[in-house]
């Protein structure tokens, strides 16, 4: 007997919907095993992780606040990955956007500016993210340098730059030498949607962008081009699509969304610049993109799920003394299961009897 894989000619739509759910179920089972190994009651731990964040308004708001940057970045990465362009430096683009947008808030600090300030910050943040993403894109198209490595190296550069800025030139003069900038003026921060929480207009902006990208990828020529280059590069060349231009476009799109996420986080949730502005959103968004099947709406649901694990992980750390890294283990496992289940979509597994093999 022998197990063989055959390429499917067509993937049933039901499988496409079920596969991420199987991955989530397998992750929950592994999570229960891991909690038991760490000496905790698996049922209590699972409910702290996945149910408690959804049980009150505060928790729900926190989930939305965490999901916002994750989904924004993931939607951009999904565009890249669809084209088989591997931008894994979204973390750096996120920080660069936060720095550029934050810079506007810092230089206007202490003077009244008017309602134009916030839109300018968001625009500058997105543009800065796009420019930062342009570096690996150009290095790839001009010199053929591997974009995985260059985009990742730039994450470290962006982290060090932020560290330098908030310890040096941008440090809050009244901050007792702590490494952070001034707290942004009220008009440089995102308005809250309701009192008693942190939910701000960043979340509706994110949802609007998700729908915009759904239309872009599904209904426009550009979206078709991006998908074609990823799935059938030879056909795309014959169709006259320029690979160089496409690499630059998708990198700038994902950089802009990561940069926007960065400035939204700085102006909305944190309200200042500091070194720990991101708990690895740019890397976690890679998981979100794959869990969401590289589809904008999928990314929205995937982002909400991952956001729950973030909040649940913080709860579990306080209430059950589970290490915070347990969350990262779960997220890594989830990506593994997602990739494993994706093979079910591409291939059919069949058992062959001895003679036939």
């Amino acid at each position, binding site marked *: 007997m022998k197990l063989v894989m055959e390429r499917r000619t067509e993937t049933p739509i039901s499988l496409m919907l079920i596969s991420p759910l199987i991955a989530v179920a397998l992750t929950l089972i592994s999570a229960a095993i891991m909690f038991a190994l760490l000496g905790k009651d698996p049922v209590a731990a699972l409910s702290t992780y996945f149910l408690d964040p959804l049980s009150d308004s505060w928790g729900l708001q926190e989930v939305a606040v965490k999901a916002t940057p994750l989904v924004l970045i993931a939607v951009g990465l999904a565009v890249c990955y669809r084209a088989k362009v591997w931008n*894994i430096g979204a973390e750096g683009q996120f920080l660069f956007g936060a720095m550029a947008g934050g810079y506007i808030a810092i230089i206007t600090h202490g003077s009244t500016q008017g309602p134009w300030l916030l839109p300018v910050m968001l625009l500058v943040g997105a543009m800065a993210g796009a420019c930062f993403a342009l570096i690996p894109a150009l290095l790839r198209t001009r*010199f053929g340098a591997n974009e995985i*490595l260059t985009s990742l190296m730039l994450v470290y550069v962006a982290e060090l730059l932020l560290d330098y800025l908030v310890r040096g030139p941008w440090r809050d003069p009244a901050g007792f030498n702590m490494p952070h900038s001034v707290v942004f003026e009220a008009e440089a921060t995102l308005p809250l949607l309701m009192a008693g929480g942190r939910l701000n207009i960043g979340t509706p902006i994110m949802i609007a962008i998700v729908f915009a990208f759904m239309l872009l990828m599904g209904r426009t020529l550009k979206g078709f081009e991006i998908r074609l280059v990823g799935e059938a590069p030879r056909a795309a060349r014959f169709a006259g699509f320029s690979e160089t231009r496409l690499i630059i476009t998708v990198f700038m799109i994902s950089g802009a969304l990561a940069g926007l996420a960065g400035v939204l986080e700085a102006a909305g949730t944190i309200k200042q610049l500091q070194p720990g502005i991101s708990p690895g959103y740019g890397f976690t968004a*890679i998981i979100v993109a794959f869990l969401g099947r590289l589809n904008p709406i999928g990314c929205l649901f995937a982002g909400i799920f991952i956001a729950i694990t973030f909040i649940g992980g913080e709860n579990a750390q306080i209430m059950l003394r589970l290490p*915070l890294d347990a969350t990262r283990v779960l997220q890594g496992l989830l990506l593994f299961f997602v*990739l494993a289940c994706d093979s079910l979509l591409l291939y059919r597994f069949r058992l062959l009897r001895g003679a036939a093999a």
Partner: protein
Amino acid sequence: MTLFEAIILTIITASTPLLIAALGELVVERAGVLNLGVEGMMIIGAAAGIAAAITTGSSTLGVLVAVLAGMALSLVFAALVLGLAANQVAAGLALAILGLGLSGVIGAPFVGVQRAGIGKIEIPWLSDIPFLGPLLFRQDPFVYASVALVIGVWWFLTKSRAGLVLRAVGENHAAAHALGYPVRRIRLLAILFGGGCAGLAGAYMSLVYTPFWTSGMTGGRGWIALAIVVFASWLPFRAMVGAYLFGALTILQLHAQSAGVPLPSQFLAALPYLITILVLVLIMRARRGGVAGPASLGVPFVPDR
């Protein structure tokens, strides 16, 4: 000991983990598999290594556990990319994320525990040679092992029949399969070797380089090892040159900081990463149209019957 000798000694210790990890990945990539999870396997080696060394009190056991931990993690990767023909880039990233998370869970109870690093081995007589002796023949066992690995990998890839088969698998897996070579078994062994090397490099980080555990202590060295493989054009001796070049940069940057170079320390700390990018660009420019690595690198393999 002069300052110059001291600098060279620290360069050797900074380069060794890069070299070991890069050699492992070099063999993996020569077999046609791109495992981006070096950082994850390295840090799991570091965490498991120091955890085992502290619990058992034996550095040797620590090293052994580190190697096994790296191999165990690479086995998960192998199951995904060989068994299920999953996307190698995504699977490698998953490995990096999973490894970083797991290392935090494993290392948490050992934060702040200090232990003596692994000592140096002096080779009699040779270590008494002035200047060269202390530099070359008074090193920790990892340094000797890394040099042995360079020679071993070079010999294996270029002189042995098994190495020839491995390269064939990496260049054209369909042809190798048609000739009857077990493509997936060969790749599995290569991936396990890569995992073991990354684990060993991690053990060096937590048992010799900084003999205690801190979260995220590999600091991107696994990624730099990947860059070194590209820089080395997939050749073992060039990987050695590359690793020592990067090691030297890291150390000189530290010395520049302490010597009071009028630049913010963060700029100097960013130098190794910026230079990695620069080197990648220069090497690709110099190689335009030349070798671009093993032809089947990163392509999933599904055997036809």
